[in-house]
């Protein structure tokens, strides 16, 4: 088969992932864009590994490594997002950089109790 087809799909996924990262305000939805970017990287690695094989099987092995690193990355990112939700009550990326003022804490802790 022609290698152009998977490579074009990878390029399209990378473009969609970039759009998702730039156009989303919800932090978890932005992570979906990052997932698609990593998926595009994996598809390029697998395609190159299948069409021009090397003795170390780098394409497949590196894709497995990328999948593992993506799992670790998403776990830490979601923990940070959950901590952000507990302290601020929302996960809007266009919000103010400063966390909520101390006197607003009781209102936010109400939102925090729901998540427990």
């Amino acid at each position, binding site marked *: 088969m022609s290698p152009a087809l998977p490579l074009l799909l990878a390029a399209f996924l990378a473009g969609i992932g970039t759009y998702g990262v730039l156009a989303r305000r919800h932090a*978890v939805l932005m992570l*979906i864009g990052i*997932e698609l970017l990593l998926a595009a990287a994996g598809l390029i690695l697998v395609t190159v590994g299948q069409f021009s094989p090397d003795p170390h099987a780098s394409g497949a092995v590196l894709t497995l490594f990328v999948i593992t690193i993506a799992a670790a990355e998403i776990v830490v990112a979601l923990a940070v997002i959950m901590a952000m939700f507990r302290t601020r009550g929302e996960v809007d990326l266009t919000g103010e950089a400063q966390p909520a003022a101390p006197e607003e804490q009781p209102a936010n802790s109400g939102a925090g109790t729901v998540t427990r």
Partner: protein
Amino acid sequence: MTSRDVLFAAVGLITAAAAVLAVTNRRVLHAGLWLVVSLGGLAGCYLVLGAELVALVQLLVYVGAVVVLVLFALMLTRSGGGEVDTSPAHRWLAAGVGAGMTVLLGGALVAAYGWDTREVAGPGNEHIGEEIFGTWVWPFELLSLLLLAALVTAVAVATTGHSRDRAA
């Protein structure tokens, strides 16, 4: 056009369409569910390309674990019907950057590999396993350390916000 080409085009179209829906859907849970379809379709693409092991790991790790985590995070962080997208001008700019990314990356990759048909001659599963525990064994062990560190970090970060909340 071989049958493999046709099969890949079909699975790839599903993957691409689901990816578009995952980044444009305004309902957060639906976006997460479209991500499941997209990553599952990508596993199908790996299968068509002949990389069975990578396809199965993709299905297990992404669709089985990562997306479930994302869906739980989406459900836990629901805070009313807030806007999830940026302003239209910002989105048009993002679409321009994304289209530029697609054209540049696609052009460079296709220019490097060309349209002519090649033989799919990837390594077999046995060979991949031998290489992971041979040539790549130290990166592999480091990755297990990374996963442990990520697990501990995630628990620490998540419970830190918790205790501060309780103290307030």
